[in-house]
């Protein structure tokens, strides 16, 4: 198993290189650093000197891939590709276009993201499984049909509506929680309640419906019939036999997003003004700060690949029948 994990980690390297080459192409070849400088400086102040200055300030004045003027190893290292793309592999994110240290920004902003994403994830999983089990228990009845219809209706509503209406009703009309913002320590709770509730409600439709099918798939299997034949009550069958087996696809399906919880949700954080990585990314997009976007793309891919590896491991953990080679 350890050998498998090590192999998977090595397999991740070419993928990360691919990601890097892709972002490098998007940001430096499709648009040259000169274009970027012009955007940042605005239309009026574009003189060749200003462009050159801006490029020198941000380290974009080097050649793209190969430095002919430098000596020996510097020929490769003293280039934009090395400075801005290869260094990402060492988690050296460099400086943003307005001069902030991206690495320390990320370390600082990760926690608010996690504070909102983790409870949403946990509460959500618990809620969805409960609802799905309820629907499976009442399968074939009006409760089940009504529940599925409700799921489809809720799926058809854009997440933005949940947020806007939630903020309006709970914060503006009823004044139960502050409309947005963040605080440290225990004070953060009152800011977190609403986003977590809305996050959970927004996902109810799709997840409940999916998990319900997992339950129904198990409920028709032979071992369940045997359990019923033994005379076990329906509730006992559901909790002792079906739940365990239905948890396998549910758990292995969600493991992949656990690492991505660090990045948080772009929409949630920007609506609720949570100073996490999601709002960091949105701000970067809006101010066209390419260095931050590049760093976040890389970070996101790394976390996703970790998620994939965790998924494989989780198969063996929840289901002893699976072995990794």
């Amino acid at each position, binding site marked *: 198993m350890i050998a498998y994990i090590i192999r998977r980690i090595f397999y991740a390297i070419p993928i990360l290189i691919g990601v890097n080459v892709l972002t490098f192409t998007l940001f430096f070849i*499709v648009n040259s650093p000169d274009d970027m400088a012009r955007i940042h400086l605005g239309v009026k102040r574009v003189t060749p000197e200003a462009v050159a200055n801006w490029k020198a300030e941000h380290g974009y004045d080097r050649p793209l891939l190969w430095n002919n003027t430098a000596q020996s190893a510097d020929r490769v290292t003293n280039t934009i590709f090395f400075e801005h793309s290869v260094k990402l592999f060492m988690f050296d994110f460099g400086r943003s276009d307005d001069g902030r240290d991206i690495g320390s920004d990320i370390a600082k902003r990760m926690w608010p993201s996690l504070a909102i994403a983790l409870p949403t994830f946990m509460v959500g999983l618990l809620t969805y499984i409960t609802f799905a089990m309820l629907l499976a228990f009442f399968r074939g009845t009006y409760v089940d049909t009504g529940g599925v219809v409700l799921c489809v209706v809720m799926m058809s509503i854009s997440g933005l509506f949940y947020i806007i209406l939630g903020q309006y009703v709970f914060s503006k009309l009823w004044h139960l929680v502050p409309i947005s913002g963040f605080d440290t320590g225990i004070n953060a709770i009152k800011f977190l309640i609403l986003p977590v509730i809305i996050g959970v409600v927004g996902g109810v439709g799709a997840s409940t419906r999916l998990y319900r099918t997992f339950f129904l798939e198990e409920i028709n299997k032979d071992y369940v019939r045997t359990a019923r034949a033994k005379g076990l009550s329906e509730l006992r069958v559901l909790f002792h036999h079906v739940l365990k087996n239905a948890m396998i696809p549910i758990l292995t399906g969600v493991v992949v997003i656990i690492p991505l919880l660090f990045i948080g949700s*772009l929409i949630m954080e920007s609506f609720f003004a949570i100073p996490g990585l999601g709002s960091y990314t949105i701000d970067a997009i*809006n101010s066209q700060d390419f260095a931050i976007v590049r760093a976040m793309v890389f970070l996101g891919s790394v976390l996703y690949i970790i998620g994939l590896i965790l998924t494989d491991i989780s198969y063996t953990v929840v289901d002893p029948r699976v072995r990794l080679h």
Partner: protein
Amino acid sequence: MPFVPAILLTDWLVYFILTVVVAFALYARRHEHLRAPWRRVTRRPLAMSALVVLLVYVGIGLLDSTHFRLRDTEQDVAVSETRYSHEVLSVLDILLKPLRESSEKTYSAPFAVYAYTRETIVHADGSTSHIYPRLQYAGAHLHDASERPLDIAKRVAVASIQGTVIWIILLSAFAYFIARRKKETFGEVLHRLRRGQTEVPWRTILLTVGVLLILVFCALHLAPYYHLFGSDQVGRDVLYKSLKSIRTGLLIGTLTTLVMLPFAIMLGIMAGYFRSWADDIIQYVYTTLSSIPGVLLIAAAILSLQVYMANHPEDFNTLIVRSDTRLLFLCLILGVTSWTSLCRLLRGETLKLREVDYVQAAVALGARHTKIMMRHIFPNVMHIVLITVVLDFSGLVLAEAVLSYVGVGVDPTMDSWGNMINGARLEMAREPIVWWNLAAAFVFMFGLVLAANLFSDAVRDAFDPRLRR
């Protein structure tokens, strides 16, 4: 000529999709194995009701996809050649002319006759007062604002009666047609329709049509005199904006699929069929692409496009060309992020299919690889493609709203539900709140997505062999 066509790039693609769909429908009609699953879809009342709604959306979208420029009415006599206005219009714009041209000064509530903001009016005797002025267009036919409820009720009543009459005429024509074909009496057909005892759930379909007819007639009777959904910050009619947004939503949902399908199908089948190094490379490509969080990749690509557009202003001279290019590019990049899952599915299915007897037989008979893939494998993975396409549609429509909010969606000047919701964020903080933009976007988007979800469920059930018992 009174107009000159100004077909946008996306319009051509719309026509292309339409041709493909029609061609496929004609082809499927003649092949029983393709007709059978569709027939199962037509037996589901909910799905057919959803289909009627979808068709209305598609119809509006198509009307909005035929663009042209009208001849300038203020001709310069000295210049002999005819000149055309710079404004690109669609057929829908012409049909909705009263809505398009009834712009107020700023916000106004649905059915309002008074403006949202106060204005200072200078009277003839020199005194001034700070009042809510009457709107320029909405309710302009009323002498006094107190006549409004009666006026609306009257128009709704007339519209409902008209809608019902038209519906009854349609219903009778339909029943007569069926009676002729099945050689039954008119009464029998009507009785069976009423009881819902037809194979295709005509009762549900006709009821849906009836409800839609009455709604359309109400809109026809009311919209020229009031702003049904109010007006927005610059006074544009919100109903008009919502109707224009339909095209954007539909395009995002369908063009994205169109862009990704060739890649996903070709690469997926090739990976599964050839295995070895081809499989490795294709797997590497899709793992790499899918490991980048979708929103970030889209953001990165759209930012690049923005920079490109800013630095090449000469290629994007008009507003509509800019927004059109951006929409197309957005579909392209959404396609890049969404083809991977389909590709993975197709690869898995092809791996299974290539061991099947008839493929082995084809190999043994010396058929070429391309031929085997085209003739034997592709038709047998078609159901997966179809299911994915219809299931993805609603997700893409919803994604448009989120992306527009993040600022990497369609052009901010383009009418789209995402842009309407985005604007509503500030409007909800106003006092009194401006809720109608959000409400209109919600109603129209919800209608489309719900119908798409219901329809795609039925398609999936009918085509998925695992579900067939």
